[in-house]
């Protein structure tokens, strides 16, 4: 009997944990991940919808939320098959490192209005097999059981030992813009 009382007491103490909910990337929505390169001859974009991952945190407060996202780089389409191949084989080496990942915790959350939060997450951003600590700011819009996440940040290719590609023999900007716009849906356990 005493055992059950203890369990009940501890569960009560930790009941705040029960407010934690998991949201996973909703593949049925139009998720967009864009890699934008500023090249001297012509800018180009790589686009994919192959983002997956989750957020696990308390409802109504993003601070402390764990998150993990990954993007399958083999699916990035620059609208040119040859350029896709160059990107995969010559620069990102996706046969060895097919995924880019971000594993982080949200350490700051600012409520703009009932549906809109601006959050900052700190964690490991990995691409090309090289991880770097990165703080990323994002806007999160909350609609019932859906999170709509928008963020943009810069990745310096050389930080991840990625050779800076050339277009028409001219190197592109080593800083590549990443823009993400995707949806997560609450998971019912």
């Amino acid at each position: 009997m005493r055992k059950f009382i203890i369990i009940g007491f501890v569960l009560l103490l930790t009941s705040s944990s029960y407010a934690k909910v998991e949201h996973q990337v909703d593949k049925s929505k139009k998720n967009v991940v864009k890699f934008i390169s500023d090249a001297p001859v012509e800018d180009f974009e790589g686009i994919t919808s192959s983002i997956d991952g989750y957020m696990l945190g308390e409802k109504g407060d993003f601070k402390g939320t764990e998150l993990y996202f990954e993007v399958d780089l083999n699916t990035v389409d620059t609208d040119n098959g040859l350029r896709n191949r160059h990107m995969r084989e010559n620069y990102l080496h996706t046969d060895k490192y097919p995924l880019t990942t971000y594993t982080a915790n949200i350490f700051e959350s600012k409520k703009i209005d009932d549906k809109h939060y601006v959050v900052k997450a700190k964690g490991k951003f990995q691409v090309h097999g090289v991880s770097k600590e990165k703080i990323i700011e994002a806007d999160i819009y909350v609609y019932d059981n859906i999170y709509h996440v928008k963020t943009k940040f810069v990745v310096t290719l050389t930080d991840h030992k990625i050779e800076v590609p050339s277009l028409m023999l001219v190197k592109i900007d080593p800083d590549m813009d990443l823009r993400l716009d995707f949806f997560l849906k609450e998971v019912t356990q």
Partner: protein
Amino acid sequence: MKYISTFVIALFIPTLLLSQSWQRKSEVVEPPLQLFHSTYAYALPTAETLKQGDYLYGISHRFTLPVSSGFEQLFGIDGPVINMMNLGYGLTDDIFLNLGRSNRESQWWFETKYKAIEIRNESLPILVSFLGGVAYSSRPTLVGGQELESGRDWHFYGVAIINTLISDKLGIGITPTFSYNSHLQCPEVENSVTLGAYAEYYLDDMYSILIETNPTITGWRNKYDSYTVGFSMETGGHFFKFSVSNNTAINIQQFNSGAQSAFLGSGENNNLHFGFQITRNL
């Protein structure tokens, strides 16, 4: 001690219940198997196609004056020249359409290439494609009062293309080919069966060296089998290919009918011709 363990269990129950349940829903996508970088070696096709919706524009020159004409005629570059343009399109990821025009006999041609078989193997990956083509010589070059029978200005050809890539460096291809009505200057319709072969060694991401030959196995052939040697530069969406060949023809149909001079000959037979190709993938 018993209470402590109960406490610990109770403490971790929520954690166990609330750890994330996410799992990757699908396997990492495997990109298409691609061996050669370009859709053609020089004249002979590789098994590669374009991504659906991609275009390819190509322009090729082969100078009819031989390299042996010397500096005075810039090793043949002063011309005249056999000129070819082509426009390719990826109908699907596996079907490639290509329309071209050569100023030799003002020939139009149209080809369809279908990537049929992909064998993924670490040491010997293989791609097999099939190509079918039709060519129309709209202004045939005739000799000595020759008259063409009706329909002789149409040519048909089919190619089986087998490619492999060894150690990501050495691409090898063979292209057994059947050509119907190989050459307009034959008095009758003549057919040719050739066994094209090429090898491309990728020195790095940008440069490669490439050799190509197209021996005739049976049927009609011009005086010699064809050989082409040169190098290729690949940058962005472009291929720049520079070569010498004993055959001035550039497109498959005309190249299949053989060369007019020897590759390693002497005197009059030593007629290597400089040429280049530029293709842009759009």
